[in-house]
């Protein structure tokens, strides 16, 4: 579309605004009738092909998350439980929000691993969830697959996450959608088991 078309003068018929109003009324009425019928029939236990619009009653019901969604960070572990992070500070360097704070130290008595993080803090109050830290990590030591979205606190300090907290987090697979063989989503909104 040419930009100049925006300023195309309205015709007389358009100037009455009647076609716009009627089209809008038609759309609203159609949705109303369709939703009312669909939900009524479903409430009566009938299997209707066309669904009414869906409001998920969050937080009682949770919508399944897509795997590419970036959520709360976690730090991955080696087999012995120590952090995979070698404190190379790539994530800290690439972070556009400058919300990662790493202090490195020498790992004593470890022949293979020289450098480990002494502390690894993320200020989620600053984080913009861009996921660059995950991309930059050469060790696959940081991931954003915990499925934790509900991040809030009563103060700024509460938004800080330290290394131990992030090491303890696990990927929450059951929060994520499942697909069938054709690639269609099979998951339904679910009630989360609060443990």
């Amino acid at each position, binding site marked *: 579309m040419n930009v100049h078309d925006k300023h195309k003068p309205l015709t007389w018929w358009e100037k009455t605004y009647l076609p716009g109003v009627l089209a809008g009324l038609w759309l609203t009425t159609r949705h109303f009738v369709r939703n009312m019928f669909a939900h009524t029939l479903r409430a009566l236990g009938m299997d209707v092909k066309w669904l009414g619009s869906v409001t998920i009653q969050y937080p009682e019901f949770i919508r399944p998350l897509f795997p590419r969604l970036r959520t709360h960070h976690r730090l991955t572990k080696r087999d012995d439980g120590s952090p995979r992070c*070698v404190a*190379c500070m790539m994530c800290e*360097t690439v972070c556009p929000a400058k919300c990662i704070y790493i*202090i490195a*130290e020498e790992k004593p008595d470890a*022949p293979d691993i*020289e*450098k480990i993080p002494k502390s690894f803090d993320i200020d989620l109050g600053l984080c913009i969830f861009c996921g660059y830290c995950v991309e930059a990590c*050469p*060790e696959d030591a940081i991931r954003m697959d915990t499925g934790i979205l509900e991040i809030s606190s009563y103060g700024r300090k509460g938004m800080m996450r330290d290394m131990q907290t992030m090491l303890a987090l696990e990927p929450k697979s059951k929060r994520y959608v499942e697909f069938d063989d054709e690639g269609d989503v099979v998951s339904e909104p679910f009630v989360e088991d609060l443990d």
Partner: protein
Amino acid sequence: MAEITIDGLRLEVERGTTVIQAADQLGIEIPRYCYHPGLSIVGQCRICLVEIERMPKLQVACHTPATDGMVVHTNSDKVLEARRAVLEFLLVNHPLDCPVCDQAGECWLQNYYMQHGQHDSQVVVDKVKKHKAQPIGPNVMLDSERCILCTRCVRFCDEVTATHELGIFNRGDHSELAPYPGVELANNYSGNTVDICPVGALTDRDFRFKTRVWYLNETPSICPGCSTGCNIVIHHNDERTYKADGARVARLKPRYNAEVNQWWMCDTGRYGFDFVDAESRLLRPRKRLGSELEILSWRKAMQAVAMAISETVRKYGPDSVAVVLSPQMANEDLFLGRELFSNLIGLANLAFEVPKLEPEEGDALLMTADRNPNSKGGWLLGLPHHHEVSLATLLQVAREKEVRGLYICHHDLGQAVADKELEAAFSQLDFLIFQGSNSNMVSEKADYVLPSTTFAERDGTFTSHAGRVQRFCQAVAPLGDSKPDWLIFKSLAKALGHAMPYFEAEDVFAALADEEAAFAGLDYGSIGESGAQLSPGAETKTPAKTKERESFF
């Protein structure tokens, strides 16, 4: 003379100049690992291969003398292909542990690989394992796997320090850099091997894992460690203040100056910057009331100090207050100190040098026995040598109550006089003022403490023992309420009723250059980054204390 053409640029060079030196003069960068202008030439790394017309094979630029009519190409396809091949060989056994390597970011394997390599490795055999993270001396960590065997460090220890600690052992791809058995790389210049190591084989133990090099900013400065005045760069961490326990100055690196230190600096100076961020830094002006310490504002502190000095001078005369300036201070400080105490207040006792009880030793390379950066500057400004006005005499007259007030700048007198003598003298004083950057036994005893900045937190100039005036620049902000020494003197002069028209260290230096024949014609611009040599005859100067006194009380 020989006329050489490199990449189409012509240059006349001296006979014996190598191609790489000629290219450097033209500003054409030829990659190099083993070549270093301060060391002998070995032609070991092969990365500097260039194409020379009418020569059938590529030649190493570092070892090929420039001859008349030579035409060199440093960027032809053949050369670039050869560089890629050399890089591939160098990386055959390189561990690629850049994430944990402190050299990352200033590593010439990384740099040249990003410029020329960028290929996938074709090597299918396993890498040869060697020793990792071995401390081979008090300051240097060796990682043999990362070494590319350029032998710069070996040649440095053979040729510059002549201490011969390092060698290459074993053969083929098992060749390994190591110190000789039973030997430590413990000479006082070992830190330079870290600087010249093009890769991460030799890294700094002091700097190890403190931060990453790309977080650091650089500011040119002068080493305050001794009277040589080695040119240095301060690497400081301004943004990520949580690293390295909050230390802002991360490391010192030598800065090339052909006239002073060339490429090198000693370890004493290199690792002697701890005091800048030390716990012992004095942060606020304070006053002692018995055992209590009271924090003062600068204004109140200056008024109190001015009152103490002027009262004592009024009661007991200008001989009753003695000032000990310091050769740790810059030319600007000494000049304003002299103006204030000698010319404005008219004090008779103005000392400056305080020799230590146990004299330091210098060496034949760079370090001098005088561990002060600016003794020469003080002498040129007419401040008395220590044999003219000595601390011992000052303390003697203090005990006899001829001197009633002492104003001591920077000196830790505990290292110069026995504690008993100091106690005896201090107990007789009406007031003791200490001005300095870090606490010591004098600041503990002082009635007033005036915190001054360190060399990294201010601008100024030092005069080296060879009579070279060199500038140092402010790298980090003053810690706490500390102020440059010259600014403290200016404030004190103001509290005494004398306005001094200086707003920057540069203004003070301009006044100094106006007044002192030795510094005539100099300014910060003409001193520049590499310093200005004073003429040798400019040393004699009438001592300040013989000047005509004008008391303004």
